[in-house]
């Protein structure tokens, strides 16, 4: 794929990333604002959960990004291991912190939603526990990458960990099918949903909004890592 290889060039990447960062970020903020406003005020309450169901409009996007973030780390790590593109490892590094934050937000918003609907803040069921494990896996990646960088490693260990951690993703996805969980089963699919359209329509706004927002943040972090590496290389050249 020549286009992918061309993008792996840091100079070409930066040329694209500079205008894309604010565009993605602000488009995301606008969509989140529209979706949240609509979710909080323009949809009818659920017949069973009442207004508590409105947490769905933020809980689903942050849960999706917690998992999509690790998919991004796994793909970037694999790309780094196979093609040795340093930009791929920079992408994995840049995704790790936002991914961990969104996984934590998924756990927090889920817990807040659980109290009025399930009567409990936490339950050690399949979905909740596997998501908590994903959060710890993110923390492990961040710690491992820092330790590897401190001892002058090339990132290969973090990349192997990034690929291995993806084992958790199908476990999280199928946890509501494999185990009898308190967490509801899959209610929103790509083509159908068990939730009425009149209640669900703001969700695509917040889903896309948070995704663009996340992408904007990842680009900011990639640009920061690239700039720091460039400054360090310059200082090494001056010292030599």
């Amino acid at each position, binding site marked *: 794929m020549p286009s992918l290889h061309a993008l792996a060039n840091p100079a070409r990447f930066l040329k694209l990333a500079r205008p894309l960062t604010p565009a993605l970020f602000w488009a995301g903020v606008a969509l989140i604002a529209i979706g949240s406003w609509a979710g909080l005020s323009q949809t009818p309450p659920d017949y069973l959960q*009442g207004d508590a169901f*409105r947490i769905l409009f933020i809980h689903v996007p942050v849960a999706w990004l917690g998992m999509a973030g690790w998919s991004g780390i796994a793909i970037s790590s694999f790309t780094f291991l196979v093609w040795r593109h340093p930009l791929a490892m920079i992408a994995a590094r840049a995704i790790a912190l936002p991914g961990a934050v969104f996984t934590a*937000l998924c756990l*927090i918003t889920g817990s807040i*939603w659980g109290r009025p609907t399930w009567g409990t803040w936490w339950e050690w069921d399949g979905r909740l526990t596997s998501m908590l494990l994903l959060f710890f896996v993110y923390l492990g990646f961040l710690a491992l990458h820092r330790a590897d960088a401190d001892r002058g490693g090339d990132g290969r260990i973090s990349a192997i960990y990034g690929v291995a951690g993806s084992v958790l993703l199908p476990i999280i996805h199928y946890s509501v099918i494999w185990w009898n969980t308190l967490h509801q089963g899959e209610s929103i699919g790509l083509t159908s949903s068990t939730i009425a359209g009149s209640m669900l329509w703001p969700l695509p706004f917040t889903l896309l909004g948070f995704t663009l927002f996340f992408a904007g943040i990842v680009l*900011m972090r990639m640009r*920061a890592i690239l700039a720091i590496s460039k400054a360090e290389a310059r200082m090494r050249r001056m010292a030599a």
Partner: protein
Amino acid sequence: MNPWPFVSAAYGVTFLASAGLALWSWLEMRRAERK
């Protein structure tokens, strides 16, 4: 049980954490690119 304190808390935590993450990432990027 009144659900609105829970709804407000969930949205509040999400927006605050997202804004904090965005601000931190932007400051880090700006600082690094100015070096």
